[in-house]
């Protein structure tokens, strides 16, 4: 079964702080995604990638950067964290895009105070 591991699982930072969320998948999937989950807004795509060195902009990219260093590793960077970025963040991966299952990690709860 697909394994997507996120770290840290919980993070508290101050407004203006610098945060990096990490994600590793061990199934040789081409696509990796970062979503945020907020009550009343569902899962919203921040950034995604279809391979090492590739980055695609999602639906809510403002305030976020991402980098795919290897096929396994995808990072989400918040360089000037704001309270509006307090959320539950999910990393996910899939073999292809559009008609295959997306496998999610367990999430990182980020609080910006």
């Amino acid at each position, binding site marked *: 079964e697909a394994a*997507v591991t996120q770290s840290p699982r919980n993070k508290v930072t101050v407004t203006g702080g610098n945060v990096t969320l990490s994600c590793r998948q061990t199934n040789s999937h081409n696509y990796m995604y970062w*979503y945020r989950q907020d009550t*009343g*807004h*569902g*899962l*919203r*795509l921040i950034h*995604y990638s279809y391979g090492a060195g590739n980055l695609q902009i*999602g*639906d809510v990219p403002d305030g976020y950067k991402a980098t795919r260093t290897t096929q396994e590793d995808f990072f989400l960077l918040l360089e000037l964290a704001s309270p509006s970025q307090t959320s539950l963040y*999910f990393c996910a991966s899939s073999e*292809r*895009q*559009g*008609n295959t*299952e*997306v*496998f*999610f*990690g*367990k*999430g990182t709860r980020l609080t910006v105070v």
Partner: protein
Amino acid sequence: GDSVTQKEGLVTLTEGLPVMLNCTYQTIYSNAFLFWYVHYLNESPRLLLKSSTDNKRTEHQGFHATLHKSSSSFHLQKSSAQLSDSALYYCALSDLPNTGKLTFGDGTVLTVKP
């Protein structure tokens, strides 16, 4: 752009009653894929059902859904709710043959009570 509407944010049922969670969508692509994902508390969201075939019933783990392109709907149903069905359910749309990106609805929290 594409959109998915789940009109109920919260559904509360008594165990044993039927479940129906609504999902409607908008897309310009005639062969889009529709999905239901389930998210149990403290676990990862995972795929429950998917379909791209018009008027064909898809079943998994006691749940079923039928894609109706004429009404742009993909409602999730189960004949008898169980306490263990309590979770957050997401309907999602893929915009194939465009990017294949998934658009999720806002989600429906299903709470099943004894």
